[in-house]
């Protein structure tokens, strides 16, 4: 079986947070305790939407040491393939679902003397659990949170009320901007930077830190990609001897799974590397979207990450 261990859960609360974001609370159907986790971990939620099964990763935002339930916050994506729309529109309190054990691809570096968090929009979620962990274990932290406007800055109110000296909020609509360079300049030695948000924000923080001479090991980021829709294409799976059609709103990995082939995966967001697959033959163009493979690997035509990447052309043969 691929992926992390599974947990059978029941949806016990659905709470609208703002116009776009809704919070879901999951408790185990057997009434047992949830596994503890580390701040920054995510869970993969299985969504059975008619004939389609989607598995999307969401950061856990609850207290890592609270074993009564997990909570996630989901931003509705009207342009996406439907995972967030399914959660927003079709899931009701009392529904039974399956989620994965926690997996952390965005852990705190516990050597840090101080943790400096940068969040953009829905990118706030992993920091919510990390802040709770820091408060439990006595770590030093500071949050800089950018959102479009107060209406879309999920949890900004509660955070600023609870930690007025740690939390700084910036609204794009008011032309407020993080003074990144001077902020990074004034940090004590041993500070680690963490950024989660839109790609542009991640690149800005990472590049600025690099330009200022921050060590690569002290700068951490997480960006989950949702698989994007694209033109349908055909793939041949050499080991299992199957030909599969990948639909417009389906990822290559989902099509492989639909064909009954057990392919490895973990994050399903192009970050963890588990689903890396060898290409045996191709005639066409790859649309690589992952963060895992190096540029030369993308160019080589020998590897693909089927969770987020696609293909356009005549022939694609995979070693699967």
């Amino acid at each position, binding site marked *: 079986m691929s992926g*992390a*261990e599974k947990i059978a859960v029941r949806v016990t609360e659905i709470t609208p947070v703002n116009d776009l974001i809704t919070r879901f609370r999951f408790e185990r159907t057997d009434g047992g305790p949830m*596994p*503890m*986790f*580390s701040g*920054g*971990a995510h869970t993969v939620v299985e969504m059975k939407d008619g004939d389609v099964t989607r598995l999307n990763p969401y950061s856990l935002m609850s207290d*890592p*040491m609270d074993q009564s339930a997990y909570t996630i916050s989901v931003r509705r994506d009207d342009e996406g393939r439907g995972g967030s729309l399914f959660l927003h529109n079709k899931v009701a309190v009392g529904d039974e679902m399956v989620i994965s*054990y*926690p*997996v*952390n691809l965005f*852990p*705190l*570096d*516990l*050597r840090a003397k101080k943790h400096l968090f940068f969040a953009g929009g829905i990118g706030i979620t992993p920091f919510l659990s990390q802040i709770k*962990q820091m408060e*439990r*274990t006595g770590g030093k932290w500071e949050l800089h949170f950018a959102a479009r406007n107060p209406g879309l800055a999920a949890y900004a109110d509660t955070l600023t009320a609870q930690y007025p000296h740690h939390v700084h909020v910036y609204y794009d609509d008011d032309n407020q901007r993080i003074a990144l360079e001077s902020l990074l300049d004034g940090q004590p030695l041993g500070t680690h930077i963490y950024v989660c948000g839109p790609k542009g924000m991640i690149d800005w923080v990472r590049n600025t830190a690099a330009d200022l001479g921050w060590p690569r*090991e002290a700068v951490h980021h997480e960006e989950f990609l949702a698989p994007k829709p694209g033109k349908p294409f055909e793939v041949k799976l050499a080991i299992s001897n199957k030909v599969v059609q990948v639909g417009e709103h389906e990822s290559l990995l989902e099509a492989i799974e639909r064909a009954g082939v057990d392919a490895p995966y*973990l994050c399903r967001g192009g970050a*963890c*590397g*588990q689903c890396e697959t060898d290409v045996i033959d191709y005639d066409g163009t790859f649309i690589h979207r992952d963060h895992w493979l190096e540029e030369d690997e993308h160019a080589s035509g020998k590897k693909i990450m089927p969770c987020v990447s696609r293909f356009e052309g005549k022939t694609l043969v995979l070693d699967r």
Partner: protein
Amino acid sequence: MTIQFNDETFREDYSFKNSPWAIKRFPFPFDKDDYMYSVNMEPHRGGREGSVFQNRFDVDEHYVSEMRDRALVLDNDPLRCQSLPHMTLAGWDLLELIMVAKSEDYPDLFELHRDGNRWRWVNKPMGIDDTFTFLDEATLPYGPMEYITRQAQGDWAVLDQRDDNLWMDAGMITTQADWSLDFDIGMNFFEWHAPVPLAHEKGIFVRALKFLLNIQQGAPARRLNWTMTVNPLLDTSPENYHKWGIQKTTLTPENIGAKQHLRVELQTFYRLPRSNAMVFPIRCYLCAFQDLMTVPKWGRRLHRVIRDLPEELATYKGFIDNRPMMIDYLSQFDDGLPTSPGIWPDLDTEPQLQK
């Protein structure tokens, strides 16, 4: 099942011995008649009833004596137990993992009573009954990792995960096959494995690291490793090489059956929940050649493996000089018959020695 604990030593008079029960459940590491490195990992989710794989952390007849030996080692050399400052949370994770596993798997020997953060731990074999506050170090006589690993057989390497690597940042290492925590502390996976021959060229460590980095909560893994030890010594450390290294020269054709031990490590790998660190328990099992030879299949196979092992491996594992004597001894137990696949003794189905 109630375990009868041995009163035995792993030093000086070496009164260590395996009961017939312990011999039959010894984790014989060779699943076929030859051996080469491989990643050889499998899920650690129970195993054959009564085997060392059945429970998360096996407790056997050597438990109390092994813990006494560990305390002696630590008295002489406190640096066998170290934890860098950022690893304390992982230590609490480990304490919880071991206490929960032992109390669930051996309820007649261990009890854990939790009331919020107020925990009471009862270890009947060692006569311990302590109450403490979880996550408050001041309420325990040692740090959390040291406290619990003074009560758990085998070595414990606690590895931090960062920068796509594993770091040897804490551990309790007193029963090791010639490596030193004090030397390796703070090293990454490739650095501490640097002395191993052949495996780097085969790309084994790159693949093994990739596998380990992806071990997730709730899905531990395991593998076996092995070496040879003259006399039933748990502490074969570099720090004490001057004491035990010389014992390798005391082997004779007359005493080899009793003195030469196959040393097997049951290595398991767990993701720790709060810290996202990994714990790598390395549990050492010793069995004298003469005891192994009571299992006909193991007699045949051990001879073939040792005879055909590449020279680099026999050198690295420290028995190249004694190998001819081992082969002479073991050949008496090899009649050339085929062996059944797998590691199990198969006492009911494998033929008795035909010579």
